[in-house]
């Protein structure tokens, strides 16, 4: 069984959209204060959840064909996009440890999924 390019692109798109979910959650989280309303009436958080739902829609579309062993770990590429956006939008530092940590996590997810064959 091989994995069609279209499935890979859909999953890649899902990971890309999902990374914006993280960005909007972080952006909205910065506006939280001691009132529950600041979590409910917060369009940034709502947008973040919206991006996640959209991302899972493309993810499911992508998973319909192809090997899970290939496609599932691809979602975790979202960690890389998220690191990029964290640097651009929130001025967070990109460090060697972050690269190493994310690299290990990605490798671990690939290996873990090999075990689910």
């Amino acid at each position, binding site marked *: 069984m091989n994995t069609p390019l279209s499935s890979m692109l859909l999953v890649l798109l899902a990971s890309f959209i999902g990374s914006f979910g993280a960005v909007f959650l972080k952006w909205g989280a910065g*506006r939280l204060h001691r009132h529950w309303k600041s979590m409910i009436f917060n369009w940034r958080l709502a947008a973040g959840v919206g991006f996640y739902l959209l991302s899972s829609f493309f993810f499911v579309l992508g998973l319909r064909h192809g090997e899970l062993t290939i496609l599932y770990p691809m979602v975790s590429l979202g960690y890389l996009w998220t690191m990029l956006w964290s640097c651009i939008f929130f001025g967070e530092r990109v460090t060697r440890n972050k690269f190493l940590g994310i690299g*290990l996590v990605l490798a*671990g997810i690939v290996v873990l999924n090999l075990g689910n064959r």
Partner: protein
Amino acid sequence: MKDQLPVPETKSFHFSSRQSVALVLLCTFFGAAAQMLIKSGANALASGSPLAMLTNLPLVAGYSLYGISTVLLVLALRDGELSLLYPVISLTFVWVTLLSLTLLKETANPYKLAGIAIIVLGVAVLGKEKKS
């Protein structure tokens, strides 16, 4: 916070970086429990109708736990670094695999165990990173 609803004159809360990591950790526990419940709910699902889904207790409970886990993530992200906390969510994979091995009696193999070990190592490396 300027364009928000009028804020009472109380001091706003603040999480230390250790507390933020603890919140994400809690978020991964809830996320893993949610995935297990959703899986067992989906297996028991007779049809794909909305009514069948809404009356399926494990499914509803699973999605509720997802909601709680999202709230915890947002609280963690308030004061923590996104690039640091986000990959920690991958621990969810670890808990789900461990729960599947114990509760669903799935068989362990070297790949699964090695994968778990490498993910935990990666999170540990991220955890060593000091907040700027």
